[in-house]
């Protein structure tokens, strides 16, 4: 699992029921523009994430709909286990990231 993917999963696992949109996730995880979408697509393909369109009328709101992502509740345990494994491996290799090690990104 790549470091950006771990950053995204850590963020999502902080509040598993919370819905995020791509730009918000990328910004919060500190990822460069454009990096987030391949990660989300892979996680969605794996069934770890589910996504839905924002429930608004673009014509009434005057803005396009966002695509919201959240942890798939049925895959939550698998995601947590995978992140734990990745954390253990990373610690064993001595690779620390400020956000992943509990500090500010």
């Amino acid at each position: 699992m790549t470091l950006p993917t771990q950053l995204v999963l850590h963020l999502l696992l902080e509040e598993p029921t919370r819905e995020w949109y791509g730009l918000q996730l990328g910004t919060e995880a500190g990822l460069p523009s454009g990096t987030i979408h391949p990660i989300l697509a892979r996680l969605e393909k794996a069934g770890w994430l589910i996504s839905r369109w924002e429930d608004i009328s673009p014509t009434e709101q005057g803005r396009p709909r966002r695509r919201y992502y959240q942890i798939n509740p049925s895959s939550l345990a698998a995601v947590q286990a995978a992140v734990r494994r990745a954390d253990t491996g990373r610690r064993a290799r001595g690779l620390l990231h400020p956000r992943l090690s509990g500090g500010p990104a």
Partner: protein
Amino acid sequence: MTVSRTFGVSLVRDLALALDAASVYGSDLASNHDSIIELNEQLTVSRNRVATLERTVMHDRDLAVSLANEVALDLAVVLSFATSAMREPEALFKRNESRPQLDVQASIDAMAATRDRDLASNLSDCIRRAQQMSRSIPGALEALKSDRTVDLISPERKIASRLPWRTVLWAIQVLPSKYRARYHEEFLAEFDELAQYSPSRRMQIMHALGILSRVVSLRIALRGHPEADQSTTRPTGSP
């Protein structure tokens, strides 16, 4: 007896005069107290007006800096286009030495037309933003004359710049056709949000370049992806 009465009358008269004087002093004191309160209120109002004026001037300065930045950015983009337009015909001539002259000329004309269209579009964006900013200036001037504050930010929703968005539209073509509509809308929402919170077009260009640089990764990630419509996706199994 007479002396005592005269003394008594004199005493009462002096007492009445003293009471009158005390009443005048009391009245003056009350008046002074009211004046002090009024002066204090006026000082508070003046202080508030100075604070409001200071905020308005700061806002005007921010507006001027923002306008200057936008103009500088637009100028940079125009210069970039001009430089590019000057270089590309030479490169095209070199690439097409063996081709008939007419084909080369037609390509140059088409390229120039595209560049002209982009330039016109960018200038149009610049003028539109300048118009939005200029609409808030009378309000700011009114605020300088009075003690009220005005919102210098236009209530209109800002529109994403066209150049970065066109770059993303081109990038979307790299994706499998069934995902284009989805990512078109998703990226459009991102650019809309960037336009609201990051008025600098540089941010939008950087975002577009970021998307462009990762579009092949996204295409690869979408292979075998379960979702192609507008509804909620369903998991396909364990990773």
